[in-house]
Each structure stands twice: as C-alpha cells, then as structure tokens.
C-alpha cells in the first residue's frame, strides 16, 4: 500500500494535468479567437446533424409526394419541396452526412498521404527527394478536372470513387508543404539519435518525424475539409460525383433545380447556402487554428 500510493499518484497527475491543459487550450482558443470558435461550433453542429439525420429530419429524404411537387416553403415543408415533392430540408440534413463523410475522408487521405510522402522525401534527400519532387511537379501541373474525370471514368461514380478522385490532387500540395517543414526536422539531434540507435527508416519517418510536422499537417487538413466539400459539390453537379438517390447538396442543385429556378428558387438557393455555410465554418475554424499554431504569427 505504502509503495503503491505514490506510484498511483505519479501515474495519475500527468493524465489529469494533460486533460486540464487541453481544456485550458480550448478555453484560450475560444476566448482569443471568437470567429474560430464560432466556426468550430458550426462544424460540430454540422457533424451532429449528419449523425442524427434520421432523428432530426422531418421527412424521409427519398419519399416522393406528388401532391406537393415544387411546393414553396411552408409550415409543413420549411424549405419547400423539389420536383418530386421531396422535402428540401430533409434532403439538406441527409446531405450533410454525405458532405461530412466526403470532406473528412478526402482531407484525411490527401493530407496524410501527402505528409508521409513529403516527410519521406525530405528524410531520404538526394536522388529520392529530387525524383519525388519531379513527380509531384507533374501532378501539380496536371489539370484537376482531368484527374477527376479519369478516375470516375475508370472506377465509376459513387461516394468511394469520388473520395479518391478528390484526394489524389491534394497529395502533391500537402507533400510540398510538409516537405519544407520536414527539411528542418531532419537536422534535429533526435533524428540523428534515432538513426544511430539503428531504427529502421519507416520507424524514424512515422514515429519520430511525422509527429513533428503536426502543425502544417493540421493546417492542411482543415483547409482541405472545405475544399473537398466544394470539389464534391462541383463534381456531383457535373454528374461525375455522388449519384441519385443519395442525398447530396451538389445533386440537389442539378437538373430540376436549374430548370425550375424561376418558379421554385428555393430548390437552388438552400442547398447552395448549406454548402457555403459548411465550408465557411471549416475555413473560419481552420484560419484561427492556423493563427494559433503558426509560431511565426504567434510571435508577432
């Protein structure tokens, strides 16, 4: 017992302290960057709406009601109905699920693969670095729409393929940014130490270097979230993204929404507002996070 207690406390304190530090950091972020906190709140709301779509949505997003086609906003249908009499609000609520899944999947995939490639390129240096840089140059110069068109033509439409099509062009940009941070980290004594200890390349890259490019990684990640949602909406609008009957914001703007825009403008207005608001929130949060994380800006 006498021996056990101090050990218990010693193991306990850092845990509690870490938690307290987290809470303090979040509190500081909210106080110093109110715009960022608002953004974070809207993002959180969006995620919750997406998760709880089945509970929140007043109607089934796929249920057609031919008695209420193109109905204007009313008490029964807050944001009106579309050409098939489907409730616009319910479709927007379910659409946020699609947007969040695509946003997070693309951003995580693009930023993470980019970071790994960037760090590895900086770590190996020399010829490998030069080669990776050239390949990234090629992808950077490659028109995005062609990559997306090709991926969709090869793999077909559907949410998974859309994610791949959007994430691939993100990789070279993320690799470029993380590489420049990793160049400095490569010269750190702890990387030398790890190499001297005989660790394998993979371990040094993933365990020692990658965690130290967290700041640029997080900045890329939050910037990509919004971009991915926009890209998904554009691809879907072109008919190359998510396809019916999946409720998606870009899909709601397609076809009938433009055709009936004059008589039923709510069909074109509200999904676009949903896209803008979601991306706006991500950007607001991402911007503030960047200001908080970027030590150069903090020093000023």
């Amino acid at each position, binding site marked *: 017992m006498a021996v056990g207690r101090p050990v218990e406390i010693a193991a306990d304190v850092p845990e509690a302290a870490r938690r307290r530090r987290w809470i303090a950091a979040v509190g500081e972020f909210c106080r110093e960057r109110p715009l960022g906190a608002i953004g974070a709140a809207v993002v959180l709301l969006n995620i919750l709406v997406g998760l709880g779509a089945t509970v929140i949505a007043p109607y089934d997003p796929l249920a057609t009601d031919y008695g209420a086609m193109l109905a204007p906003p009313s008490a029964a249908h807050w944001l009106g109905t579309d050409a098939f009499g489907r409730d616009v609000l319910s479709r927007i609520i379910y659409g946020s699920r699609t947007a969040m899944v695509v946003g997070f999947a693309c951003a995580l995939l693009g930023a993470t693969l980019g970071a790994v490639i960037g760090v590895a390129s900086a770590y190996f240096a020399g010829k490998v670095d030069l080669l990776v840089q050239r390949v990234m140059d090629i992808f950077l110069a490659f028109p995005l729409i062609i990559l997306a*068109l090709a991926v969709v033509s*090869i793999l077909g439409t559907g949410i998974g393929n859309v994610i791949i099509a959007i994430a691939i062009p993100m990789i070279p940009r993320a690799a470029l940014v993380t590489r420049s941070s990793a160049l400095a980290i490569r010269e750190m004594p702890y990387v030398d130490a790890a190499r001297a200890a005989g660790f394998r390349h993979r371990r040094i890259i993933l365990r020692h270097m990658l965690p130290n490019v967290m700041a640029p990684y997080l900045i890329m990640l939050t910037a990509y979230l919004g971009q991915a949602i926009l890209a998904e909406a554009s691809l879907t609008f*072109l008919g190359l993204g998510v396809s019916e009957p999946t409720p998606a914001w870009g899909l709601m703007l397609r076809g009938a*929404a433009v055709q009936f825009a004059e008589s039923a403008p709510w069909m*074109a207005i509200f999904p676009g507002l949903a896209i803008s608001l979601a991306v706006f929130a991500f950007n607001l949060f991402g911007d503030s996070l960047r200001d908080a994380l970027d030590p150069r800006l903090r020093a000023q």
Partner: protein
Amino acid sequence: MTKYIVKRLLLMIPTLLGVAVLIFFLMRIVPGDIVELRFAGESSYAQKENLDKERARLGLDQPVWRQLVTWMAGLARFDLGTSMWTGAPITEEIRLRFALSLQLAIMATIVAILLAIPLGVIAALRQDTWIDYVVRVISIAGLATPSFWLGIVFILGLLIVFKWLPPMVYTPFWVNPVQNLAQLIWPALAVGYRYSAVATRMTRSAMLEVLREDYIRTARAKGLWEKLILSRHALKNAMLPVLTVIALEFAFLIGGLVVTEQVFNLNGLGLLFVEAVGHRDYTLTQALVMLVAFVFIFVNFMVDLAYAWLDPRIRLR
C-alpha cells in the same frame, strides 16, 4: 540570370514529358474507346470489320508504344494533330474556346484585383477593428461559396428582379463588344469573387508583415506623407506574394472553370475537356492537358522571374 532562365526552361521539358506520358496512359486505362462509342449509337450490331477498319484509320491498331512515339514526335514539332472525333485540326478546335476561356480569366482577374487590393489594404491598416473583421468574413465567405452556385443565383436574381436574362450564346468580343460583355460579366463576377477572396487574404497578410518593417518606421519617423508611405513603400513591397496568388489562380482559370461554364452555357476549354474525355477523343484530350499544363508551368516560371525582377535581393541561381 540568363543561365537561370535557360536552366528553368530546360527543367520544363521533363515535367511536360511526365505529364504527356501520364495522360497518354491514363486515357488508355479508361475503359471504352472512341470507335466503340461512335458505333454504339447505331441501331444494328456493328460489324467487327468496320470497327477494325475505323481503328486502323485512327491508328489505334498500332502497338501502344508506337502510338506514344508518334504522338510525342508530333508534339516535338508542335503538331497536335487532328481531333479523333471531329477530324478537324486540334488547333482549330481549341482556338475559339481558348479565346473565350482567356477572356473570362482576364475579366475575372480584373474583378479580383479591383476588389482584393483595396479591401486587403484597408483590413491590414485597421487590423482587429470591425472593418478588418468584415473584410475577413467577406473573404472567407468568398472561399466558401461555390462559384457555379453564385452564378445560378446571379441568373436567378437578374431574372426575378429585372426580368432579364444575360445572352446565352457566345459572341466574340470583336464582333459585338456589348453583347459579349453582357454575357461574360456575370461569370466573371461569380468567379472573380472567389478569386478576390484568395487575393484579399494574401494582400492583408503581406501588408501586415510589411507594415512592421523598419523602413516603414523610418519613413514615418522622417515625417513622410502617410499616403506616400503606403503606396510607395508598403504596397510595392507587399505585392510580390499577391502577384503569386493572382498568377497561380489565373493559370487555374484556364481550363479549370468547367462547372461555371456549364451554368452559363459557355463553350470554354473546361467543357471541351469533359466532352473530349466523354468521347474518348485521345488526341484532343492529350492536347488539352498539354496546353493547360504548359500554361501552369509557364505562369510559375514567369512568377519566379517577376520575383527576381521586382526584388533585387532575390538572386536566382
């Protein structure tokens, strides 16, 4: 300097070669080919000999490596060949559409510059006041709003408020400038807003950085007129990064405006891309990709040169 320019120009070649090889094989991985697509429209079952004959005519019966070599040899002579779908020379196919995309890109750039520089400078000068917050919210909203949706809203607004629709058929500027501008100003505004958002943010942060420099303090200390300090000392030095984002966005606009072109019924390069891939028109797609990649690489190169020219501290090696 000359050595640097030559080196950079030579470095363009491997990148363009890489792009060429990538698009060549990418198009051939995409299932289906132009011959199948063309004959699929016919009601009767297409004869196999007919398909083979058509393939032979287009050179698709050759081994892939020989097709690649033939195409590359053409590229080296700046010969893009003919479109597989229409049979017309590709330069003909691209010319009008390139003119349209270029004009739209230039107009959007003007909109962006007119909005971004004053807004960015004011936000930087009034940092952390309500003006700054308003400008930042406007620019973040610009990044968040899909241009094509803004285009739909513009059309809708014009239709509902003024009972007027912008012309939906393209008229070249030299034929009828009024008609031309009446059509293109709306997409230019829709695209320019997003574009200006990128540039406003850059202007603001570059100005903030420059305003903290010693030479600004010196200029103020010697009692220089504030307007002069801003225009001659601050803005001039803050312009470099702004120039970069403006140039890179410009490069993106050439061929990147697929959805906006769709909304405004504009036959620009973006839609041509979609058509070309849809038809599996290998030669046209390849030519378009090379064009867009070249514009991107070339603009990057020009930006680097402009840096060295505008900022004598930068030595290019």
